[in-house]
């Protein structure tokens, strides 16, 4: 079994009902849900693989494709849009060389577009690995991203 998965299963005492939390933790270590790991979970939790696949494909937060070490969510919701989210997004795309829904080839960044992150007063907004950056200009967004390894 994947060494990083055992402690996660132990944390949740191998209980089926924690499947979603377990998947979240797996994604936190691998940045996505590898097929082999899902198969191991199916064995360990006694949940048919078809059911795990259902859950993993249902939530947009889960990815079955490899993802970058850092997840960037750029808001393109209405409030952020009128404050220039489009330009911010373009600046980011130019900086890291990928578009929304994509992951770069050295698996450093994955980029996603969001439709409102619930903090419109701070727009334009992006979230990198859960950290919010508000009142963005293109230059500021690029500067923030350069700070990531």
């Amino acid at each position, binding site marked *: 079994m994947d060494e990083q998965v055992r402690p996660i299963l132990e944390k949740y005492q191998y209980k089926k009902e924690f499947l979603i939390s377990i998947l979240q933790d797996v994604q936190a270590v691998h940045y996505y849900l590898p*097929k082999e790991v899902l198969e191991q979970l199916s064995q360990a939790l006694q949940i*048919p*693989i*078809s*059911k*795990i*696949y*259902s859950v993993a*494909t*249902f939530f947009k937060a889960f990815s*079955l494709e490899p993802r970058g070490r850092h997840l960037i969510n750029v808001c393109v919701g209405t409030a952020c849009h009128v404050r220039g989210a489009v330009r911010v997004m373009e600046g980011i795309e130019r900086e890291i060389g990928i578009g929304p829904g994509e992951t770069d080839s050295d698996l450093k960044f994955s980029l996603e577009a969001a439709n409102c992150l619930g903090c419109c007063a701070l727009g334009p907004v992006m979230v990198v690995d859960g950290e919010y950056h508000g009142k963005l200009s293109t230059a500021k967004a690029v500067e923030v991203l350069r700070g990531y390894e």
Partner: protein
Amino acid sequence: MVTLTINGREHQAEEGTTILELARSRGIPIPALCNHEAVKPYGACRLCMVEIAKDGRSRLVTSCLYQVEEGLEVQTHSEKVINVRRGIVELLLSRCPNVRVVRDLATELHIKEPLFPIENEDEDCILCGLCARVCTEVVGVSAISLVNKGTGKEAASPFHDVANDCIGCLSCAFVCPTGAIKAEDREGYREIPKWGVRLKLKQCETCGYLFAPEKQLQYISKHECIPEDSLNRCQDCRSKAGG
């Protein structure tokens, strides 16, 4: 026992009976595509909508899920019911324009044109989930499931790859109301392309007929605690031999 009316006529039913079950047992037709007696009601297709009235208020419910209540007044063909039913069939027809059951329903409701432009002429799955539900609830295998969501939702094998848990029993194809699951036995194998499955068939010891996938027989033997070699003959030869 509770007493209620359907379309103005009084009926009695055991508590816990659904409106759909009662209506069917009395020969009152209600269209329903996601319901099957072998599995739990699911409420996916919404075709079985009826209007219920109680204490002077009326509303629409799915009859496959709604259980009978004392004093309920059920209408299976009121104007409201026909309207929602039409709406649902229009949507189904837009998704699956060439599926027989859907077309028949459309004809019955005088629907000539699908409501939306057709994306895929050959789409034949209405997402009732019966295949996956039977696989879980009746067969106990859960080889397949409904995956993705919204417009991307579909019945699929895990990872859209070979459904490794499938035993080839074809229960899914049997319950599918639209014939969306195709299977073929040829050259000694059973193939179910939708699930990526190809399973070797067992030959009857007596008559030589290829009667079932080996994997299904192994599954039966394991779960029903029947020795595997007692499943070496097809059903005909077994009953002829008296056991």
